[in-house]
């Protein structure tokens, strides 16, 4: 078993053996090394290393175990295609393999399938987690109500616009850029699957954590003079740049 960050805050679990007990024990150990980091973090299961043996794994149980461990199972990729229907029944979304640089421009048949299935995952999730997805064909997710403490909103393969506030203890995440028009108080993660061009725009920067393409920074008062002010955050090489939004 191998657990990697993959240039983003979205963790990918590479399953390499069929023994679920063992897998979960190892995963639990990993989680406990950095519980703050992994708690309630989305996770993708990659079956590439298993090949056709993936057929023998109980994915419904795996999903349940991941939830119990505090992860938010988002989707599965590189599984044998014959399994798709069964995986969806078990509450999983089928994901394409991530191709960060092209992800934002890619529109293909399975995008709609992916979005629909993720919407399904959202319903079955724990109260704390409500990943949402942009409607099919529209590459932007608009949230018009506050994102509250304990809630998580994820715009898969899309930009996100939040018209209300995000609370301390909430998390918003998009594969593209994020715009927030109310106070931004929670965690905010743009370019969640590695898009380094993604940016964060907000009217009142009070975020607990900012991240673009996996480069993250905790914000406390000393970090920026722009606290409470309109700001834009972009990535310059490995460094997050916080700039005033209005000139």
């Amino acid at each position: 078993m191998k657990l990697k960050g993959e240039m983003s805050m979205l963790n990918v679990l590479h399953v390499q053996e069929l023994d679920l007990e063992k897998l979960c024990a190892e995963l639990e150990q990993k989680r406990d090394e950095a519980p703050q980091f992994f708690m309630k973090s989305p996770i993708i299961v990659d079956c590439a290393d298993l090949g056709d043996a993936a057929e023998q794994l109980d994915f419904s149980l795996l999903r349940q175990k991941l939830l119990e461990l505090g992860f938010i199972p988002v989707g599965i990729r590189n599984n044998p295609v014959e399994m798709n229907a069964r995986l969806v029944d078990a509450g999983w979304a089928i994901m394409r393999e991530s191709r960060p640089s092209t992800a934002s421009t890619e529109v293909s048949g399975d995008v709609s399938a992916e979005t629909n299935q993720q919407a399904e995952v959202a319903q079955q999730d724990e109260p704390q987690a409500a990943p949402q997805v942009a409607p099919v064909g529209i590459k932007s997710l608009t949230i018009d109500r506050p994102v509250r403490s304990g809630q998580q909103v994820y715009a898969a393969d899309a930009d996100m616009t939040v018209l209300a506030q995000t609370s301390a203890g909430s998390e918003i995440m998009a594969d593209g850029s994020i715009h927030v028009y109310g106070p931004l108080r929670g965690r905010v993660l743009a370019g969640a699957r590695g898009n380094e061009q993604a940016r964060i725009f907000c009217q009142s920067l009070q975020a607990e954590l900012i991240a673009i393409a996996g480069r993250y920074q905790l914000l406390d008062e000393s970090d920026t003079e722009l606290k409470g002010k309109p700001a834009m955050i972009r990535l310059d090489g490995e460094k997050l740049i916080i700039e005033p939004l209005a000139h």
Partner: protein
Amino acid sequence: MSKVIVVTSGKGGVGKTTSSAAFAAGLAAKGHKTAVIDFDVGLRNLDLIMGVERRVVYDFVNVINGEATLKQALIKDKRVDNLYILPASQTRDKDALSKEGVESVINELKKEFDFIVCDSPAGIEKGAFMALYFADEAIIVTNPEVSSVRDSDRILGILQSRSKAAEDGKTVKEHLLITRYSPDRVEGGDMLGMDDIVEILSVPLIGVIPESGSVLQASNSGNPVIMDKDSEAGQAYQDVVARFLGEEVPLRFIDVEPKKGFFQKLFG
């Protein structure tokens, strides 16, 4: 059209039951047929605060299990017309509440009552979830302290993502009720101010109830504090009911009592 209103908070001990009793009694006193349900299965508190604990024969869980009819379990208040109490069971655990069971009780109540007030238990587990699931409106009870505000924020998220209204693509109307407010302690910096709480939660304020000894007195004597016309807390709850029913009433008891300064003492 009858309305289901949940009184909830996330955090425990902030004044949900006190507020449920006062609010329900206030609505009934204004002529609206009102039922108040205790969702705190296993603890039972509402019947005490409303002074009807000796009259409890059947409870909410008995009705859900078909061991009693709703009519048998509802306790009619002797002081206020139009007011009925559905007590919780002391002996069962929260798993006794099933979604279907709660739904059938609420639907039956809807046929007869204008308002159904649901007194939620603390926490964000099953009991609290059941209390809010069928709500049309919510009164979020918050104390002026950081942990209470944070828990209110959490419960607001659950309300708007997991309630029946949310599942049907609708929203639950939110009201913020700040209780145990002590202007002196806000001034002294020990407690969060009213404006800060509204700013953090961004929910319309329906009232501020001051910290007051009359609340404990009222609950010890089994009279909802709203019936104590001399108490500031009682008057503040009256205002809450009026606002809920659409009246415009200014906030009271939110400022520090002016202390007379040296010159005021001399000339005043």
